[in-house]
């Protein structure tokens, strides 16, 4: 199936570029450290805002991973060739979006130990937290991949991508931070499900919408 | 802030109206000037 072939190709590509992923991880860990310095050695404040820092680190780092999504296609001018068939634009989009989702999820998970260590945060409900990270990463990945394709073809791509993406993903940020915080601090009023539903709805809407619109972004 | 009746605050009223009309006027000027410039290009 076209989609599976495209995913396989991109996973292999990202594996070959894994040193870049390591650089992004180090960047994310540094961001978490910088937030500690910005707030000061106030254990209470750090613990209270830990999930906010985590998701801001993920968001900031996402611009690094997302911006290069179509780098290899642009370099080889393969973008036009890949799109000879209309069906292939959707396959290309979903393949790239899935790989970005995988990368961002792994990235978010890898920062969890740092969050625990730097901000002195317990992790009582790990599976649920993993779920929230997956939902949040999906919310960043769908519009992020679309805008990556757009900005890859434009000037000033490194400023343009975050500029377009960040206002859009405010609900993802709100939902992910709140849900993660509730999972860590305790959820007396059972609100996590509602936030998770918000995230899932955002993901559903944008994975469909961006898939539909992708063709228009890469057409000639 | 004591609950109940708010007294005064006219400086905020002037600020709000002044700012709004200033922004509207400046933008009207900007649109018309840019339009005229494009007409003569």
């Amino acid at each position, binding site marked *: 199936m076209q989609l599976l072939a495209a995913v396989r190709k991109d996973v292999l590509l990202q594996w070959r570029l894994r040193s870049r992923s390591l650089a992004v991880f180090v960047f994310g860990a540094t961001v978490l450290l910088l937030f500690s310095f910005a707030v000061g050695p106030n254990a209470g404040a750090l613990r209270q805002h830990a999930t906010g820092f985590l998701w801001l680190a993920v968001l900031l780092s996402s611009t690094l991973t997302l911006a290069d999504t179509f780098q290899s296609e642009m370099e080889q001018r393969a973008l036009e060739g890949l799109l000879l068939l209309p069906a292939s634009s959707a396959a290309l989009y979903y393949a790239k979006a899935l790989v970005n989702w995988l990368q961002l999820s792994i990235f978010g998970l890898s920062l969890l130990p740092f969050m625990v260590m730097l901000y002195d945060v317990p992790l009582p409900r790990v599976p649920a937290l993993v779920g929230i990270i997956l939902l949040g990463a999906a919310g960043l990945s769908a*519009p992020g991949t*679309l*805008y990556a394709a*757009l900005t890859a*073809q*434009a*000037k*000033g791509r490194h400023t*343009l991508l975050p*500029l*377009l993406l*960040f*206002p*859009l993903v*405010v*609900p993802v940020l*709100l*939902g992910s931070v*709140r849900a993660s915080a509730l999972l860590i601090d305790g959820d007396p009023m059972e609100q996590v499900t*509602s936030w998770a539903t*918000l995230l899932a*709805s*955002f993901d559903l*809407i*944008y994975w469909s*919408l*961006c898939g539909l*619109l992708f063709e*228009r*972004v890469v*057409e000639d | *802030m004591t609950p*109940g*009746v*708010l*007294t*005064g*605050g*006219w400086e*905020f*009223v002037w*600020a*709000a*109206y002044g*700012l*709004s*009309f200033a*922004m*509207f006027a400046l*933008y*009207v000027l900007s*649109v*018309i000037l*840019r*339009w005229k410039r*494009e*007409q003569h*290009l």
Partner: protein
Amino acid sequence: MRGPLPFILIGLATLCLAFGSYYGLFVAPPERYMGDVQRIMYIHVPTAWAAMLAFVWASVCAVMFLLRGTWLWDARLEAAIEVGVVLGLTLCLQGAIWARPTWGVWWDWDPRLTTTAVLLVAFAGIIILRQVVDDPAKRATWSSVATVIAAVDVPIVYFSVTWWNSLHQIQSTPDTVATAFHLPLRMNAVGVLLLMVGLMIARTRHAQLRLQRELADPVPNQIPTATIAAGGTE
């Protein structure tokens, strides 16, 4: 592309706003609890209605461009986004000026204003996108796509901010003026709407002219030989 319609509309708008604001500032009595600060509502609510309309119209233009592909819709989109950003910025600043004496803070995360602020930044990003892209076709398609994506996000942002706030019991800006004096409100509403439409028409015409210039045949880079032989430069 010429014609006086925008100027007529803006002129009428000025009259309406002058009359409505005079009435709202000097004739209408102060409100029972909020006193004179309430008068800000007579300009704030109309601006809110106009900003909302501008964004809705921008979304319509984006969809129409994606469906029909005519340059007119792109010109209208360009105008709508810019007018919407100006109205939205004015709205947020008015909201801050109103909030300060009322709640003691410049910004209180009111869901409507917060959503407007997010939308404002999103649309400002689209304006920048338009400036960075030179190819008119790509510029039109991409900004339409970005506008649709932002438009779909508006209810989601509004809902998530409302819910985020409900945990902290934030007071919100009233969206109706709770007095019997609708005259200043209606006059200003008509005024701001006329202003918006006049601005959109003028800005659309500007965009159309610029598109015509961008899409025209390139200027020949050689003076015809006959003219050179005749000794003139035309």
